[in-house]
């Protein structure tokens, strides 16, 4: 892996490199160089499989982090390629030409995060939400509880409890004393 990183570093500047497990690594690259890196990984390094593409909303940094998770069948290694993009008018280059199935992930991200992928097929079509009109719901500044209360009729009389406390109180009165169950966080 280290050689791989070196090789990539020879091409471009890697912003970060992180080894999580023996078979799971992450690298972070510049937005502009992503396509280069991915095509290199696919064509030359054997990472032929795009397992998924997902996004994380770093509201505080005003950034989205996209993770392209690749897999190499020969050496059985997962490699996550991370890229940070701006949160306002988020836009990313489409990689559906590298992996044809990527359009589906991109469509999902477009719907749920509002990240635009120009050129990606059918990216504008709704994916799971039919006729969604609000802010993309997976953005962290979207208040889902408020939306739910506003939109769906609440049945009166519903009370909410913290399950941990509630269950301890209601069902497992002698929880702490119980010898059978031990929990690490206590």
């Amino acid at each position, binding site marked *: 892996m280290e050689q791989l990183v070196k090789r990539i570093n020879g091409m471009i500047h890697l912003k970060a490199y992180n080894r999580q497990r023996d078979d799971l690594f992450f690298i972070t690259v510049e937005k502009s160089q992503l396509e280069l890196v991915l095509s290199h990984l696919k064509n030359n390094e054997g990472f032929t499989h795009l397992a998924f593409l997902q996004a994380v909303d770093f509201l505080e940094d005003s950034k989205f982090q996209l993770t392209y998770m690749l897999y190499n069948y020969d050496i059985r290694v997962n490699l996550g390629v991370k890229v940070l993009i701006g949160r306002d008018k988020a836009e990313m280059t489409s990689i559906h030409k590298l992996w044809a199935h990527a359009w589906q992930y991109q469509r999902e991200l477009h719907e749920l995060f509002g990240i635009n992928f120009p050129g990606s097929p059918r990216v504008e079509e709704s994916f799971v939400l*039919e006729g*969604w009109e609000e802010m993309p719901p997976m953005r962290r500044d979207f208040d889902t509880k408020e939306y*739910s209360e506003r939109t*769906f009729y*609440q*049945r009166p009389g*519903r009370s909410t409890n913290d399950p941990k406390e509630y269950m301890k109180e209601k069902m497992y009165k002698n929880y702490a004393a119980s010898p059978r169950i031990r929990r690490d966080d206590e």
Partner: protein
Amino acid sequence: MNRKHIDEIEKQMKLANEGLPEEERKFFADVIPTRVDPFNKYWEQFLNWARSRSLWMLAFGTGCGATELRPLMTSRFDMARFGIFPRPTPRQASVFVVGGYASIKTIKRIIRSYEQMQGPKYVIALGSCTINGGMYYDSYNTINRLDYYIPVDVYIAGCMPRPEALIAGFNRLKEKIVAGECEGMNEYTDKFDWFKKNQKEIIKDWNMPDYNW
């Protein structure tokens, strides 16, 4: 009344089907469902007795609660002995078991299937989610109260309810049917506008006729 007048009234009685593009409206019936009253008392009682002993359940698992229907069908609980059978098409089913949480996408299908069932038809709402949203009470995509969208005859609480609870629910339904209390189909037609308003409020992508015959 002259012919023109009748035409006018008939036109008003038609559904607008505004959710559909103009060229698709000709494919769907635009008739407003009307109330169909029961027969006279004794005959209807006999029929209700037969109906309650031959409940044809729509085999459409709408949520995670549908998992519990499988043990109900198989030999451990064997719902067939109560005269309950799964039926693969809503046209022939009489009981609709809504299996738990219903996302907006699902509620659309639930409404469609419910409307396609031929009355008298009954709805059993399964699990807390159908009652008040359950653990998804704050989800942006899951309804909280099923009875705002279709009439519900029996609720079975729990997350999820065990097959025993389901059997209890079915028995309750039977009692209600025999008692002649399950007039969901007429409730739906009577309060048609209210149901439709609620449905259209949440379903933005209303890509179907106003009533799915």
